[in-house]
Each structure stands twice: as structure tokens, then as C-alpha cells.
């Protein structure tokens, strides 16, 4: 079960990276063809650039994601003894190396794990979770996070996040260009850059179509089933379903987080924005009541 999950995650990561590289190469080829009349040059530059970018993102993913979520690293156990000790315990039973520990200054209880592999893993907890959860509950939450680390769930979600960040950046760029271009009615500029502008607009449309694609990629990468699996593995580690159950209850009955990064929402143990409106179809997390019901059967 565990090894299957690890293999599946590694396979998915490769598909994700391949998909990303193909996408980047196609866009590069199109730009090269339109502006420099050379399909190959564009494709080649985009491929090399995309590979370097992806590598940099993966190398720096922990820093980037922690930064996006305003998380501060703690390096000394005395800064948060209970959190540190619980993380240490859970890393020990999950048989993964001790991850880096981060704290997010936010009163809403929540937590997540990230990193490109178990050796480079990091966990983050909000100050709210430290204030409101007792030790058993915190153990449940951290065991859940360690299961994500051990399963390589963190690798796929971190890479998905890093790669989709650049696509959503391009989408923003594209839609800004669209509006700017549409608003600009200067005759001279239109004559000079008419062709250029039409091409840019076409590109913008394409980029805007990628928008939903971004969401789809995240959905594909981060299936909701993995939350159930991580809950189950967490109980296998702590042998205490009640801790995780009451932690989930406390977390789901709290206010939304103030500064969570929207793209990172899928990483958290519970949706940090508490939105229920988008129904279940697009939500990254299964309903808490479902999760609790499954835990209670254990």
C-alpha cells in the first residue's frame, strides 16, 4: 500500500514534469515561429529555460512556499518545545529524517508539509494550532504530515505548486497585456506594432485558457484520496485515532486563516479558507465529516 503510493507519486511527478516541459516547449516554439521565424530556436530556448526554471523551483521550493505563507523557521527546540518534540517523535516512528520546522503567525489552527523529498522535508504549523491543540491532537496532525512526507505526497504537491506558479504568473501577464492592448487606441502605435499586438493578444487568449488548466493540474496531482490515506497512516503511527479526530474537529470549527497563500491551499491539512460554496467537485480536501467518520471506524 505504502510502496504503491510512493511509486504512484513518483510516476505522477515525472508525468507532471514532462507535461510542463512539453507545454513550455510548445509555447516557446509558437513564440519563436511568430517573432523570429524559427520554430527550433524558440523551442530550444524555452526547453532549456524551462528546465533551468523547474530545477531552480524544485531546489528552492521549501523557501519559496514557506515565504508565500509567511512562515518563519525555528532552529532551536526551545522556541517551541512541544511542537519540536512532537515532530521529532513522529519523524522517528514514520522513520523519516527530522524535517525543518516552521511557524506561521496566524491564530487559525492549521499545518502543512512540503519539500521535494523526505530528506529535504519541512513542516509548518500556525501559532493557532500550538495554542489550541493539546499534545495528543498535535501528534495526530504531525503524524498526518509525516505520512505525506513518507508517501512522497509532498514531492508531487510541491512540484505541482512550483510549476503552476509560473503558469499563473504567465496568465496574469497575459490578461494584463490583453486589457492594456485593448485600451490602447493610439493610431501610430497601432500601425507600428499592429501585427505584434494581434499576436500578443492571441497569446494572451491562449494563456487565459491555461488558467483553468492550472487548477486541473493541481487537482490531478493532489487527489483527495491521499488525505484519507494520510489520516489512516497517521493513526497507524500514533495508534490513537481520537487525537486526530478531535484535532480535525477543532481545526474545521475555526475561523479562516489571514495570510495563507491561495495556491498553497491544497497543502494544508484542512482548507485554510473554509470555503464550502464551490461544492465538492473542485475542493482539494474531502469533507471533514467524512474524514472523521472514517477515523471513527478504525
Amino acid at each position: 500500500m505504502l510502496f504503491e503510493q510512493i511509486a504512484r507519486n513518483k510516476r505522477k511527478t515525472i508525468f507532471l514534469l514532462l507535461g510542463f516541459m512539453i507545454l513550455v516547449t510548445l509555447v516557446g516554439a509558437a513564440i519563436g515561429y511568430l517573432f523570429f521565424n524559427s520554430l527550433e530556436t524558440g523551442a530550444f530556448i524555452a526547453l532549456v529555460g524551462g528546465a533551468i526554471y523547474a530545477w531552480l523551483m524544485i531546489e528552492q521550493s521549501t523557501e519559496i512556499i514557506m515565504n508565500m505563507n509567511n512562515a518563519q523557521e525555528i532552529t532551536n527546540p526551545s522556541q517551541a518545545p512541544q511542537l519540536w518534540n512532537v515532530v521529532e517523535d513522529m519523524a522517528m516512528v514514520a522513520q523519516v529524517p527530522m524535517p525543518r520546522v516552521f511557524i506561521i503567525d496566524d491564530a487559525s489552527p492549521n499545518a502543512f508539509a512540503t519539500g521535494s523529498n523526505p530528506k529535504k522535508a519541512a513542516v509548518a504549523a500556525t501559532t493557532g494550532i500550538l495554542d489550541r491543540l493539546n499534545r495528543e491532537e498535535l501528534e495526530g496532525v504531525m503524524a498526518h504530515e509525516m505520512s505525506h512526507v513518507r508517501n512522497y505526497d509532498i514531492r508531487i504537491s510541491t512540484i505541482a505548486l512550483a510549476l503552476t506558479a509560473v503558469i499563473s504568473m504567465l496568465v496574469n501577464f497575459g490578461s494584463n497585456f490583453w486589457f492594456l492592448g485593448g485600451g490602447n487606441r493610439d493610431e501610430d502605435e497601432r500601425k507600428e506594432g499592429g501585427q505584434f499586438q494581434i499576436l500578443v493578444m492571441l497569446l494572451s487568449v491562449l494563456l487565459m485558457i491555461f488558467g483553468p488548466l492550472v487548477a486541473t493540474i493541481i487537482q490531478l496531482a493532489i487527489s483527495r484520496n491521499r488525505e484519507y490515506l494520510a489520516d489512516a497512516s497517521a493513526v497507524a503511527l500514533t495508534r490513537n485515532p481520537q487525537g486526530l479526530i478531535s484535532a480535525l474537529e477543532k481545526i474545521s470549527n475555526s475561523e479562516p486563516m489571514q495570510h495563507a497563500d491561495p495556491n498553497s491551499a491544497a497543502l494544508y491539512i484542512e482548507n485554510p479558507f473554509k470555503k464550502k460554496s464551490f461544492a465538492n467537485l473542485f475542493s482539494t480536501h474531502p469533507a471533514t465529516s467524512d474524514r472523521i467518520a472514517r477515523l471513527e471506524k478504525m
Partner: protein
Amino acid sequence: MSIIITIIIIAVLIFMWISIYNGLVRTRMNTQETWSQIDVQLKRRNDLIPNLVETVKGYANFEQGTLEKVIGLRNQIAQVPNANHDEKMELSDQLSSSLKGIFAVAEAYPDLKANVQYSQLMEELTNTENKISYSRQLFNSSTANYNGKLQSFPTNIVAKVHHFEPSEFLETPTAEKEVPKVSFGPDGK
């Protein structure tokens, strides 16, 4: 031709034998390592206990002999030879429950609970207790892994020839499965 094939088959068999043997050594080593993790935590707890006794002595009214019993168990554990897993763990369980008793009594003394040194000690001790029970869990799962290998084919043949003995499980008392019921108030962290 047939000589070459025979040589290849023998070479493959030797290679398999060596890798099975190495696998057995590795898993046995794994159980020994997890035991030493438990031992490290037992020692750590032993180091903390004199501090705890010093700290609580002045504050709370303990029943006659409570603290002496804790000290006594601590010294006994230190004297049990390392190979005697069962006796060591049994004493450790008794010590765990005596410590829980001390924590429970201390709950009634707000002065003690407010003491910074006490709350630090309490976190350290809770941490060690948890680590003991988690490493015990780990010891049992690595033992299960090792013993399972000893019984499965063809590893069992190699194990027989090289006299690999099954390792014994540590019994987990029912009380030990519960995390100590020590409540952490907002100031007790």
C-alpha cells in the same frame, strides 16, 4: 558449454546467498539499533529524575515514599544489564506510572505548575516518555520484520546455516498505550 552454465548457476547461487545473508544482518542490526534508541531515552529520563525530585520536593505534599520509590526505580533500571530487555522495560513501566502519579499530585499545586523549571522538566519528561513508547513500537515492528524474514523461504535456509536467532517482542502493557493524562494548560507549555 555445460561447464560454463554450471559455473554461472553456481555464481548466481553464491551471489544470492551473500545478498540474503547481508539482508539478514541488516535487519538484525536494525532491531538492535531500535533497542538502543529505547535505551538512550531510558538514560535520558534517568538523568532528568533527580532534577524533578529536587524541584517538586519543596512544593507539594507527596505521600510517604512516593519520591523515594521513583528514585529507587531509577537506580534499579540503571543496574539492569542491557541485554535483559524485559526486566528493563518492566521497571521502566513502573517508573512511568509512578511519574504519572507525581504529575497528577502536582496538578493540585498552582505554585508548582507556574514554576518555569517544573514546566520545562514536565515537557522534557513527557517527551521522553513518548519517545520510549514510540521507540518501543518501532522495536516491535523491526522485530516483526526480522522474524518474518527468518521464517520465509529461502531466507530461512541461510538463517539456519548461520544460526540467526529470532528476536523477542517487547510486551506493551495496556496502560502504556495511553499518553500520560497530564493536562497542559495555556501556561503549562
